[in-house]
C-alpha cells in the first residue's frame, strides 16, 4: 500500500514538474481558445486575403480557432498601436506589410516606433521588379544605365510607394537620377504604363507574370531575392545581389507585443511554419499569385531590423 502510494505520489509530482518545466505546452492558452489575428488594413487587401487563408487551417496548426480582426487606419498604425495596448500573452498577433513600418518612419509624431514589435516570422516578401516596353533603349539594364546617364532624371518609374522606394534605393546606389512617380496602387501605375504615360513600372512578381512578355519586358529585380524558378516568363531578370548591390525586399511580417515571452513567440513561430506547410494553404496562396517565403522568428527579426535601417536611408530619396 505504502509503495503504491509512493509511486502514485511520484507520478503526480513528475507530472506537475513536467508541466511546469515544459514552457511550450503551457505557453499558448488563449481566452475562449481563440487567437485574434489582427490585420491593420481594411478587408479585401492582400494582407487580409493572407490572413483569411491562414485562419482556415488554424485548428490543425495552432490547435485553436483564429479570428481575423481588421483594425485599419493611419496606414496600419491604428492596429499596431491597439496591439501595444493589449496583454503580451501571444493571443493577439499582428500581420502586416512594410506599409505601417514606412508610415511610422516617415511620421515625426508617430505614437509607435518601428522597433516596437517582436517579429515571429515572415510569411513572404515582395520583390520590386522594373518593367519596360520592348524596343526602347531602356528595355535592358545596360541600355537603361546608358540612357539614364545621358538623360538624368528623364526616365520615369511609376509604382506604389513601397515598390518605388525599392527602385529609389537601387538607383541611388548606381548613382543614377531617375524620375520616380509614386502611385496609390500598382493597378493605377499599370494603367498609366500601358497607356504609355510613363516609361517604366515597378511591380511585384505576380503583376509582372501577367504583363511579360506580351505587354512588357523585365529589366531588373531590385530586391536581393531571386525570382521563383516557376515563373518561367520572368527568367533571366538580374537581381540587385547579382549586380553586387544591396536590395530591399518588402516583407509580409507577423509580430506580437514586444513584451511577449520568448517561449510563446517561439511557439507562434513554429505554428506559423506548420501553417505555411499545410497543403490547403500552399494551394490557396499559389492561387492568389503569391509565394510563400517563410522565415522563422530569429531570421525574420534580423531581416526586419535591417529593413528599418534600409528604409531610413531610402525614404528621403522619395521626397
Amino acid at each position, binding site marked *: 500500500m505504502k509503495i503504491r502510494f509512493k509511486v502514485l505520489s511520484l507520478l503526480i509530482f513528475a507530472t506537475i514538474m513536467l508541466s511546469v518545466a515544459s514552457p511550450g505546452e503551457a505557453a499558448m492558452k488563449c481566452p475562449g481558445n481563440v487567437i485574434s489575428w489582427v490585420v491593420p488594413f481594411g478587408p479585401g487587401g492582400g494582407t487580409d486575403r493572407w490572413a483569411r487563408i491562414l485562419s482556415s487551417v488554424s485548428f490543425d496548426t495552432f490547435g485553436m480557432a483564429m479570428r481575423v480582426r481588421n483594425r485599419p487606419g493611419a496606414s496600419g498604425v491604428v492596429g499596431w498601436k491597439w496591439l501595444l495596448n493589449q496583454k503580451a500573452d501571444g493571443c493577439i498577433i499582428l500581420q502586416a506589410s512594410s506599409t505601417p513600418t514606412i508610415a511610422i518612419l516617415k511620421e515625426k509624431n*508617430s505614437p509607435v516606433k518601428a522597433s516596437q514589435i517582436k517579429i515571429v516570422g515572415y510569411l513572404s516578401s515582395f520583390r520590386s521588379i522594373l518593367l519596360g516596353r520592348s524596343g526602347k533603349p531602356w528595355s535592358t539594364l545596360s541600355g537603361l544605365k546608358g540612357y539614364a546617364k545621358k538623360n538624368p532624371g528623364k526616365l520615369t518609374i511609376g509604382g506604389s510607394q513601397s515598390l518605388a522606394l525599392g527602385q529609389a534605393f537601387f538607383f541611388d546606389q548606381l548613382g543614377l537620377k531617375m524620375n520616380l512617380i509614386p502611385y496609390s496602387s500598382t493597378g493605377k501605375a499599370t494603367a498609366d504604363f500601358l497607356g504609355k*504615360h510613363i516609361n517604366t513600372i515597378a511591380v511585384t512578381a505576380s503583376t509582372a507574370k*501577367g504583363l511579360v512578355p506580351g505587354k512588357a519586358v523585365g529589366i531588373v529585380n531590385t530586391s536581393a531575392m531571386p525570382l521563383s524558378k516557376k515563373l518561367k516568363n520572368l527568367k533571366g531578370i538580374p537581381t540587385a545581389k547579382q549586380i553586387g548591390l544591396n536590395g530591399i525586399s518588402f516583407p509580409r511580417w507577423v509580430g506580437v507585443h514586444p513584451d511577449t515571452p520568448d517561449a510563446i513567440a517561439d511557439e507562434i513561430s513554429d505554428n506559423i511554419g506548420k501553417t505555411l506547410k499545410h497543403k490547403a494553404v500552399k494551394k490557396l496562396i499559389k492561387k492568389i499569385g503569391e509565394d510563400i517565403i517563410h522565415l522563422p522568428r530569429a531570421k525574420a527579426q534580423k531581416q526586419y531590423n535591417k529593413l528599418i535601417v534600409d528604409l531610413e536611408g531610402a525614404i528621403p530619396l522619395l521626397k
Partner: protein
Amino acid sequence: MINVDAILDAFSLVLTFRVMYWLAIGITIGVGVGAIPGLSASTGIALLLPLTFAMDTASSLGLLIGVYKGAVYGGSISAISFATPGTPEAAATVYDGYKMMQRGKGKKAILMALYASVTGDTLSDVITIVVAPLLAIVALKFGPSERFWLMVLAVTLLGALSGRHLAKGMLSAALGLFIGTIGSDPIGAVSRNTFGLWWLEEGIHLIPVVIGIFAMSRMLEECVDLLKENKTVQSAKSAIMSAFTTGSEGLSFREYLSCWKEMAIGLGVGSFVGMLPGLGSTVGAFLSFSVAKQASPHKKIGTGVLEGVAAAESGNNATVGPTLIPLLAFGIPGSSGAALIGGALMLHGATPSPMMFELYPTVVYSLFIILFIGNFFNLAIGRFFALFYARLGQLPRNLLIPLIVMMAVIGSYSFQGNPYDVVVMLVFGFIGFGMRLFGIPDAPLVITFLIGPMLEASLRKALLINRGDWFEALFKSPLAVVLFVAAIVLTYISIRLQVHERILSVSEEEDAEQSGL
C-alpha cells in the same frame, strides 16, 4: 473575335440551379449590407471571399457579383429612409430621396431608386459586354494630364449644385478642398494639415464625412425642431401603428418613364466614370446628379423630385459593369470591388491579365452572363426590401431621430472598426448643421472633397512626368486639349444658365408682386 464555343460553355456553366441560388443569396446579402451604413460593397465581398474557396468558379462569381450589385443599390434604401447613405455612392440620393420620404413619398422614391439602378446597371452591362475591349483602350488614353482636365470638368458642374448663392457654394467647395488635403501629400506622402493628430495621417475617409454631413447634421436640426415642438411619446406610439398599417403611394410606369432623360444621363456618365480606373461609383453618382440638374433646371432636381433619385441611382449602378472592363482587358482593377472579384478569379486559377480573353474566355463570358442575369434578381429581391424599408422610414420623428443617430454612430464605426471615424462623423455632423443654419449648400463640399485629392494627384503626377513643364503637363495630348476646351465651354454655359435662371426668377417675383397689387 467572338468565341461562340466559349459563350455556349459559359451558358451551360451559369444556367444551373446552384449558380442561380448563390446569385440570389449574394444579392440578398448585398442589399442588406448596402442598407447598413458603413458597410460597403467591397466590405461585403471581402467578408464572403473565404466562402468561395471551396466553390466552383461560376457559383463564386454569382455570389460576389450578387453582393456587389445588391450593395450598390442597397445603399440608397437607408439614404432615402433615414438620410443616412448606406454606402458613399448613395450620398447623392439623399438630396431628393429623403425629402420625398419626409413628404410621405418614400415608397415612390425607393422604387424609383430600384428601377433606375436596375435600368442603369442592365444597360451598362450590355455596353460592357459589347464593347469592353474597345472601351478599355479608350480608358488607357486617360493619363494624369487627361484625368486632371476630367476632374476640372467635374468641378465646373459645381455651379449647378450651389443653389441660388454662388458665393456660398464656392465657400462650401473651398472647405471640401481643404478637408481633402488633410492626411498625406499624394506624392511625397508627407503629413500635412493633420493638426498634430497622428490618426489623421491617412486622411479623412468618405464614409464618416457623408454620414456626418447627410445624416447627423439633419438629425441635429430635427432635434432642435423637436425640442421646440415638445411632442409627447404617446403621439409617437400611435404614429408607429399608422406607419405599419396605412399604405403609401407607389410608382406608376408613367412616372418611371418620365425620368428616362435622367436615367440616360446616369447611364452615360456612370459607364464612362466606371471604365476609368480609380474614380468609382460615388463620383459616378454625383456627376450624374450634377449633369442632370444642369441639363434640366426647370425640373428642380434636389428639392425632392423623382428625377434626382433616378439620375443618382442610375449613375452609381451604371459603374458596376464598366469597372470590370480594365480588370478583364488589362488585369487592372477599376475599383476596390473589382479588385476583390479579381482576387476571387485568381483563387479559381483565372488570373486577370491582358490575356484574359484569350486564356479564360469561358470565365469571362460566365461573368458577363452573371452580370446581366443578376439585374433581374436585384429587381425582385430589391423590391421586397424596398417595401419593408419604405414603411420603416415613416416612423415618427421621436423614434426616428435616436434610431438614425444610433445608425450613424454604428455605421461610421463599423466601416473600419476605427473609433476615430466616429469622432470624424460627429465633427462633420456639427459642420453640416452649421452649414444648414447659414444656408450653405453641402453638395459642393462633398464633390470637392471627393475630387480634390484626385485632381491634385493627377496634376502633380503630370508635372512630375514632364519635369515641371506646365505647358507639357497640361496640353501634351489632343485629348487633354479637347477636355480643356470642354471645361471652358461648360463653364460658359453654366454661367449663362445661372444668369438666365436669375433673370427668370426676378421677373417671376415682379409678376407675382404686380398680380398681388
